């Protein structure tokens, strides 16, 4: 009895000790590797990183989580951070990080291949790929032909026929921030109330579910990021849906836009390698792969766009610098909360 107890207890303690030992050594990471705090889905990042490592021999570790949570971590860690780079799908987050002084500016001679409105004014972050907020409409739906603008979504004729994401979605927030900056507070509040009304207080937890609902005719119109529509068409190419790029007439604001981008941590101890990675990501080769994996628009003008999406040159984009999305974040959140969107 006594001995079995001793054996059990000591085994447990020894196992724990060994595990801690193994854990500390086996899980100790390669100190030469670059660490990216990544708020973007691994499957869209890994292939590019792999190619980079093959070309340069520099190893990269992806530390993936939600963009905002990682920014929070970066801020709390300060000089102790192990992150060399920060990757986010949202320009708002990148600019907030820049305003907090978490990033190191990327030299102009590297950054200048990317248009000025798609990077921070001081180059503390650079946009890598862009996505637009477009409309997906069921081709069999009635009375949807008047929809030319995002603001038409607030039209009472669409009562119960509109699909939107939960208002916590970062693309939804960024889009709303663009409308707020282009059209002002009163108009945006009316719009939020209108779409809240038209969606019947029901919100989808995923963009892909909106596209699916529109394809099935459960909803007639949806507001989504453009690539979700192509993802749906991959699986069911005969779906009765069409894409409308909103606000394209000469007097409209242009389609809302958001970029995914990258920044170098201010406290990175491997700045040269980190810059190499940034250079690769904005090279024509890196740009093509990075953007096309998710069928986004490359931010570099001379990089190829995926064949099926509308060429950038044919689209009018809302004239809101991406760096202003950070400044607008809290105000946008307040408005969304005040209207009470789900």
């Amino acid at each position, binding site marked *: 009895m006594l001995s079995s*107890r001793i054996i059990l207890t000591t085994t447990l303690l020894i196992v724990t000790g060994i595990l*801690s030992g193994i854990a500390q050594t086996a899980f100790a990471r390669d100190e030469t590797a670059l660490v990216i705090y990544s708020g973007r889905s691994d499957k869209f990042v890994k292939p590019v990183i792999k190619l980079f490592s093959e070309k340069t021999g520099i190893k990269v570790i992806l530390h993936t989580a939600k963009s905002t*949570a990682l*920014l*929070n971590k970066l801020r709390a860690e300060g000089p102790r951070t192990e992150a060399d780079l920060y990757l986010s799908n949202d320009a708002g987050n990148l600019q907030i990080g820049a305003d907090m002084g978490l990033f190191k500016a990327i030299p102009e001679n590297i950054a200048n291949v990317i248009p000025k409105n798609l990077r921070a004014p001081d180059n503390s972050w650079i946009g890598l790929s862009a996505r637009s907020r477009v409309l997906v409409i069921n081709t069999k739906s009635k009375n949807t032909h008047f929809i030319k603008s995002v603001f038409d979504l607030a039209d009472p004729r669409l009562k119960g026929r509109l699909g939107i994401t939960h208002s916590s979605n970062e693309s939804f927030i960024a889009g709303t921030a663009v409308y707020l900056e282009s059209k002002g507070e009163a108009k945006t509040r009316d719009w939020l109330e209108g779409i809240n009304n038209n969606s019947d207080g029901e*919100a989808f937890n995923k963009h892909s579910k909106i596209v699916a609902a529109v394809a099935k005719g459960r909803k007639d119109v949806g507001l989504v990021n453009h690539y979700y529509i192509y993802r749906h068409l991959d699986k069911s190419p005969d779906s009765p849906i069409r894409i409308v790029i909103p606000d394209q007439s000469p007097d409209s604001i242009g389609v809302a836009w958001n970029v995914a981008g990258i920044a170098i941590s201010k406290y990175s101890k491997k700045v040269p390698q980190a810059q190499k990675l940034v250079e690769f990501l904005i090279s024509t080769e890196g740009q093509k792969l990075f953007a096309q994996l998710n069928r986004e628009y490359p931010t570099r003008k001379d990089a190829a766009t995926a064949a099926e999406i509308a060429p950038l040159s044919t689209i009018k984009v809302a004239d809101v610098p991406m760096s202003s999305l950070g400044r607008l974040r809290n105000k946008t959140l307040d408005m969304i909360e005040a209207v009470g969107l789900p």
Partner: protein
Amino acid sequence: MLRPRLNIQGSLSGMVVLLAAIPLLFVMLNSVQLPLDKWLGLWNTRLPSLFWNTLLLAALVVIGCFILGVSSAWLIARRQFRGRSVALWLMILPLAIPTYVFAYIYTSLMDVDGWLGSLWITLFGNAASIPDLYNVGGVALILALSGFPYVFLLTHSALLNSNPHMEEAARIHGASSREIFWRITAPLIRPAIAASLAMVTLHVLSDFGAVSMLRYQTFTLSIYLQMNGRFDYQSAAALSSILVMLALTFLVLERFFRSRQRYFSANQAKTWRIKHASKKELWIIWSWLGLISLFAFILPLAWMLTWSFEAVIAQTLGSEFWGYALNSLVIAIIAATVCIVAALPIGLFHTRFRSWLSNLFLQMSSTGFVLPGPVVALGVMTFFLTTLPALYGTLAALTIALVIRFLPLAVQSQEAALSQLTPSIEQASRVHGAGPLETLWRITLPMMRNGMVAAWVLVFIDALKELPATLLLRPIGFDTLPVRIWIEASEEMLEVAAPAALMLVISTIPALWIMLRSTRQST
């Protein structure tokens, strides 16, 4: 109540409590920096709805868990029927499924093309009337399904451990079954029910996974959004401090009502002669237990199996997947072991040297459970960054965060086990010349073995499922199964999320088996 004595147990528990209080200190330091007008702003805008949302949710979950847990425990403990041990397993297996996985599975099942969603449309022909989970009812359902096994476990073991002589004596004196239940059994199992419902309530207050998946604004979600969406630590801390006060009030009340009743069982030998269920009873028992486990375990399991099967076919599971599983096991084993060792002095100090100090220690040790996981993580993170930077980013920091979060689970079960032991046996050992350590080793620990095992298993399971602290504090490149589920679920990668969830369930089974075996040996 005695005057506090700072003996060895006292000083050791003091040290553990100091560690456990780190997140609370962090919250207090940050919330005092919040200017008064912001406090008033919170008070006027957010707080009323947060209070209402949180309390309503807690009340619904407690009612749900009470009904599910106590009924199933009584049926299984007091009736002998075919498949009883299967039933026992079915009632505790939901413990293996994290709340965010529950929430995720149910949103996917209730979707228009989900199993339940399409069933609904077949039955009622209307997609619009499918019940929405994004409200208090949905969240309460999820949390009740995932929380009732705690009530089941504690009530079941209280029913088995209560002394049969009392019920027999009552029966001899002519009491009816109903009278026996209300006058003998109910009072005997009341402490266990109260303790388990308290545990459920604390789980509700600090739940992050389900409320954030279902976007139901409780204190925890609101705190998380303040921290992460708006980078407003001070408001987050202020809300946390209110949540802590709410939870501590609740705990003190619960303990106050419970402290009036203590039962020492003089005789450890118990032999229950359990009634065989009649045909009719068997039918009722199995329809009720079957219904519970259909929703609490079988459906989620079937979902996981289906999607894991798809994953195997599509060959999406790489070697990384096994790495995540290994990481999860490693951290959960370390955390559980450290936790039960750390909890022991607190339980001993409180049960054997009860005083206001031991009471204070006990309450303080539960702060990690009361505070939202993201806040605990941030507190521990700040502590390590400022005072022990060398250990930041290592497994040690993560382990400490997990120990702080789950210490109360260990303390609760150890204390429950200790308070059922009459101190006279320990006193006898001391009288016969055994030292305090020898007494602990030869008398106390063996007699509270079940409590220790239960504590280890409970912490292990919760650490295995833990999400918010692991997300923030995991070493670079150290991904666990919950972390991957969280990441993949937000990308709708069912083929990756489902096998990870299934793996969590599988890893939990041996731990549950150990716990069940140890309770069975004692009866």
